[in-house]
């Protein structure tokens, strides 16, 4: 097997994952990134989405993250998530509630016509939708 990279996922309240993985898919702000061992050093912001952990050619784990940061180095990948939930603990009800909330916030933000506020609300909506998609797929 090829070299592995150490993936760590931490949220403010706990350390969720720390293990060697073949490949980690990370929802970076400008598109998903696949991280293998020996990746160029990078610091990226994340959007709401799923982190997929690949081991030996198949996806072994999925975790939802609601935004945050990731630090990628050749031998490790550290994800600082604002919020992280293993995909099998997600519930469609919470996701739906989140979407409703985010949609309302977005409408309010659209009224202000301020780019930054709207962007933030949009990010929330994207995160909520990603959560719903992950929750319903199970």
């Amino acid at each position: 097997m090829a070299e592995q990279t150490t993936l760590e996922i931490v949220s403010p309240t706990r350390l969720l994952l720390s293990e060697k993985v073949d490949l980690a898919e990370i929802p970076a702000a400008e598109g998903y990134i696949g991280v293998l061992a020996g990746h160029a050093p990078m610091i990226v912001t994340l959007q709401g989405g799923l982190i997929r952990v690949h081991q030996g050619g198949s996806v072994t784990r999925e975790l939802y993250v609601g935004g945050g940061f990731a630090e990628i180095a050749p031998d490790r990948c550290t994800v600082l998530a604002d919020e992280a939930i293993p995909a099998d603990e997600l519930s469609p009800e919470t996701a739906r509630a989140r979407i409703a909330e985010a949609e309302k916030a977005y409408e309010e933000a659209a009224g202000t016509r301020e780019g930054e506020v709207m962007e933030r609300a949009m990010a929330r909506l994207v995160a909520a939708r990603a959560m719903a998609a992950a929750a319903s797929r199970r």
Partner: protein
Amino acid sequence: MPSLKALRTRINSVRSTRKITQAMKMVAASKLKRAQSQAEQARPYAERMERMLGALAASVAGSPIAPPMLVGTGKDEVHLLVVVSADRGLCGGFNAAVSRFARNRIRALMEQGRTVKILAVGRKGRDYLRREFRKQIVGSIDFVGRKQIGFEDAVEIAGQVTAMLQDRQFDVCTLIYNRFKNVITQVPSEQRLIPASIEGTPAQTADGPRASYEYEPGEEEILAELLPRNLAIQIYRALLESAAGEQGARMTAMDNATRNAGDMIARLTLNYNRQRQANITKELIEIISGAEAI
């Protein structure tokens, strides 16, 4: 000499006090365990955040785009102190220690001609500081009736601080809280939040080992998101340490109180028995001398 009845009531009242302090001690001990593990679980995030921030700060240090949250406003006029204390008493010198520490700090700053603003977190510290610095308190937050402190609470406090910074309401922000040294000792300490004090980041040159990171999006955008996060996590850590310290202090205080109550019961019981004995002897003497007189 108090009557037998008075002594009996006294002993009973001390007994029930001891029961209460003992119960409080046990409750504090179990809450302490929870608070400690919460504080431990928050540590990995804070550590990694620090590492990432170190790398970033090194790459923007000295450049004109460095945001005020990182380098401050360049002045040293207005100080904002975030004082973290407990909401409840009966925990020994816990609140007094941190409040006194804050008071001395405020006095020292005022003597230097600085303007001081206070953001009081926790009811007890607010009440204490309000006596002397009513005008300086710009806001207060407490968690009365809450079971556990969540990260959202820290985010809320950080939000307030950030908003104030954006309005240029202060130049330097310092956090004052009780650091959890061990269960018995809590040390009032201060930590500078803004400008951010980042350890181990001497001005590194472009060819430094850490400067090789790629950023997506740019450094500025990442910093703009990372810094408020960092602020929140620092405050979160302080809140958790303070919460753990509070329970530790309460446990120690209640342990002492229980022991004192025990001593007091022993003394009162001795007194009570002596008194009883004396009464019996007195009655005997009366009977004997009465019989002799006949």
